[in-house]
């Protein structure tokens, strides 16, 4: 860990000014930042503590949806009654993430910017090659242990999975990330690695996430987050799905469907092909099973992670049937 300056900006404006400095990093819950600093990945010159800034931890609900301040804690958002009623997938994604201690520290803004669990990314001394950490240096994961790496959205230079849970639910329900005045759809906020895996999101220097809004919708109200993993708690997803559904008044025909995947892709992965294939169709297991396979269109296994290609459609199927009342 290298020495750094510690700043406590008096206002959001000042935080933005500091954040524009080279090698400056914001500190919210610190559960990602400190972890990465200890393993030698993050080496900020200046740490800008924003935890005390007022008004950034509110959860407010209006007709259009919910507005969640960037400093709201994961545990608070998960437990919020309005969230649980209107966005159960969001609450469930948060409850199943990390551990109680981490959820009590970690914030919504920080959560979106958590970084990959690629072990090679996190071990710079033993594995100097990592295009995400050091563009152009290579990718140590290729040919290594890749059980947790992505099968979707990978590129030649990086196959790291985005590990987050919340962002998957946000992606399914068209949430918007607020960077002060600038707003950006969550699906556009996260970037594919392409040839620039070091750029993971659309945040520009000097920008601070101030909030996330999620529009209210019927599918969001009737939603779930299904997370599959070997350990029953405190583990990242082997594969997960955030799914919301709206049925026609006949109770059988799918009017609207939202599907996003986690644990399998380089960014939170909206599975629009699955949605399109099922909207307007009858909700029944066979059709759902077949449509779910479309989620893996273009999937590419890398050694140890082939199982994800089998697993993820099953997770999608179960989640759709569950919100549809069939599982």
């Amino acid at each position: 860990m290298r020495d750094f300056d510690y700043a406590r900006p008096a206002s959001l404006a000042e935080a933005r000014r500091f954040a524009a400095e080279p090698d400056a990093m914001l500190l919210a819950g610190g559960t990602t930042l400190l972890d990465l600093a200890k393993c030698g990945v993050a080496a900020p010159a200046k740490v800008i503590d924003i935890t005390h800034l007022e008004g950034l931890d509110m959860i407010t609900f209006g007709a259009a949806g919910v507005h969640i301040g960037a400093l709201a804690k994961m545990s608070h958002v998960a437990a919020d009654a309005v969230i649980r009623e209107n966005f159960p997938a969001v609450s469930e994604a948060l409850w199943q993430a990390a551990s109680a201690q981490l959820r009590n520290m970690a914030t919504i803004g920080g959560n979106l910017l958590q970084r990959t669990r690629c072990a090679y990314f996190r071990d710079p001394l033993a594995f100097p090659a990592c295009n995400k950490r050091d563009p152009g240096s290579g990718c140590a994961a290729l040919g290594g242990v890749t059980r947790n790496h992505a099968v979707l959205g990978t590129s030649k230079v990086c196959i790291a999975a985005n590990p987050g849970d919340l962002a998957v639910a946000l992606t399914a329900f068209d949430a918007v990330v607020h960077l002060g005045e600038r707003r950006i759809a969550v699906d556009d906020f996260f970037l594919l690695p392409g040839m620039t895996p070091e750029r993971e999101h659309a945040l520009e220097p000097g920008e601070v996430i101030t909030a996330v809004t999620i529009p209210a919708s019927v599918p969001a109200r009737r939603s779930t987050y299904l997370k599959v993993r070997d350990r029953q708690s405190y583990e990242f997803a082997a594969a997960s799905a955030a799914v919301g559904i709206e049925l026609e008044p006949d109770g059988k025909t799918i009017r609207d469907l939202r599907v996003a995947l986690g644990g399998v892709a380089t960014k939170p992965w909206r599975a629009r092909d699955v949605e399109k294939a099922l909207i307007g169709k009858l909700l029944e297991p066979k059709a759902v099973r077949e449509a779910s396979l479309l989620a893996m269109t273009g999937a590419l296994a890398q050694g140890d992670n082939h199982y994800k290609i089998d697993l993820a459609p099953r997770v999608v199927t179960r989640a759709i049937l569950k919100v549809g009342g069939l599982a």
Partner: protein
Amino acid sequence: MTTDILPAKVKRGDASDGGASLGSRLSRIDGPAKITGAARYALEHHPEGLCHAVIVQSTIGAGRIGVIDTAAADAAPGVLMVLTPDRIMPLKSATTWLDTPGPDGPYLPLTNMINFVGQHVAAVVAETFEQATAAAALIKIYYEETDAIATYDDPRSGEGMALDHLAVSWGEAEEALAEAPVRIEATYRTPREYNVPIEPHGLVAQWNGDKLTVWEPSQWINGMSRTYAEWFGVPYENVRLVSPFIGGGFGSKAFALAHGAIAACAAKMLDRPVKLALTRPQTFTAFGGRPATRQTLRLGATEEGRLVSIVQTGANETSRDGVWGEPLASVTALMYATPHLAARQTVVPVNTVLPSALRAPGENPSAFGIECAIDELSYEVGIDPVAIRLLNYAEEDPHAKKPWSTRQLREAYEAGAKAFGWEKRTSEPRSMRDGHHLIGWGVAAGTYPVRRTAGEAMVRLFADGRAEVASSGIDMGQGTYTILAQTAADAIGLPVDQVEVKLGDSALPGAPVAGGSQLANLMTGAVHKAALAARDELIGLAIGDPNSPFRALQANTLSVADGVISSPRGGEEVSIAELMHRLGRDKIEVLRDTLPETNNSAAEKHRTYTTITRMRSPTEGDYSLHAWCVHFIEVRVDEDFGTVRVSRVVSALDSGRLYNPKLAESQWKGGIIMGIGQALLEEGLVDRRKGRVINNNLGDYLIATNADIPDIEVISVGVPDFHASVLGGKAVGELGIVGVAPAIANAVYHATGKRIRDLPITLEKLIE
């Protein structure tokens, strides 16, 4: 819920009845100190002038260091010293735990020759931990890298070296196998597993002239003190190792390790106390866990399922610079009656740290093999998995050909099956389900030997009527403090809260390693002896001393109960404190050991407590001494996802007499929990190119969480075994884990029809 098969109140008319305390469910007497934070662990010591050392580890898997550039680190703020292989003071090679001389030449805790990634290559000592950490990052090392052989799956690693001392055979195993009407063959594998105690390894070392004090968590105070003394060429008595509390060890805190040598060197070279704490990732390479193992088992049987032959070939990984044999035949050659058996094993050197002991080394992977294989045989011949085990029940030790001292294994099957409801099991795989869950019931047995070494204890009776027990034996959570207080209380005749126990300090009387599940038995034996002697001395004084109120009675004995001395002839009752006062004594002090009557010289004593050469094997003497257990386990496997959840565990265990059932159950349950993690989660993921264990932290190296653990019912079926130990106990601590993983693997097979023979049973193995 816990069922005691033998109700606590049943008196058997022997020493196992104990007195008021031994055998009762007393809570841990060290508990309050731990819960309130009053218990000070090693790294919580801050002697005046303390400075901090941080270790730098190699980042290549094999080769040598060309150049270490320390210029920037040397000049960094707060840095007192940068240690490199060339700068560290030379140490002497120390005697091994087997009492053999260490390797020739000096001992090098830092070396230029790299045998594995994560080997200690340098250290920085600074005024603060942060300064040392920052400076350590400035050290530049230029390596001459060679190819590393990461695992024994790399064909270049070869077949390995045969370990003849671990080979077992009787009869004509190959021939008998060839003629057997039923034969099965399968290969079972366990990955590298790590101890990951929640208290990481580290120490505070301080020199005062040529006297060294070390605060360090230790499972073996005397053994580690000896190593430190020999490294530095000082008398054994000059080393004081202090370890009253230990945050878990599971086998990993029994030896003085390189990081300890580095800290003690730094302290010596700087003449200041030095603290060194390994980071969590460093603990994955500063010492080894359980090595990866593989074993091929071939069983031959009659059509009725009676074993006629067992042939086993096994291998485990070891390091390039040492041999760790994980005895893979230890359960294979013990559990079942077979007329023919042959087992042999190799070790395969790869570029890793030397593996070491992890809860039930040998028995654990051995049971995984044989207890899965016997299950496979049961399906092959079409009989119930419990029935086949009883059919092949060993009435005596099939290897040593000696009678068991006690073996309540049949009782364990019976009690466990009944509590579990085994008779309701449908035998077909995939025949039980609940929605998406396939349900499976599996069974497996386990065993752990009774190891015996002598120990020593001091018992003091004070003027205030209180007693003190002192030993360098340790308590890493097993409950040593508590059961020794109970032992002394009963032997003297005191309420247990009048006994104070002091442990974990080399200044106290000697004790051998707290390993091999031997400590409880040997220390209760020593304390019992010393406490009885103290009581005898007290009574002797009461009878004989002119100032004693009992003198006039002319009694030839007195009784002591609840701290009060009385005569069977009636008359005055006097408290111990009152008697001591009248006698004008400030204390009675008795030191006793359980060494043999002969052959107990000072040198012999030293060897007993500092090496394992005086540990008696379980078959030395007329009997074969072992603890036994059976686990009945239910799993629920999600058919689509392959996720396995353990939903029910009933284990019946024979550890002989339980000195404190609450603590023994806690040890058993801890072992079972660890076994669940081993079966489903734990695996060191090794990078095939470098040999780096890449999940070297508790976020990625998965151990079981509370959510993974169902209610566990443990049933004691043991009876006091006085061949095994003075007070009738057998092994407890390492028993519970043995057999859990195969019971789960067998349950998974019953649920899914899929045999998973390599641990852990992760979801992809069930869906791919």
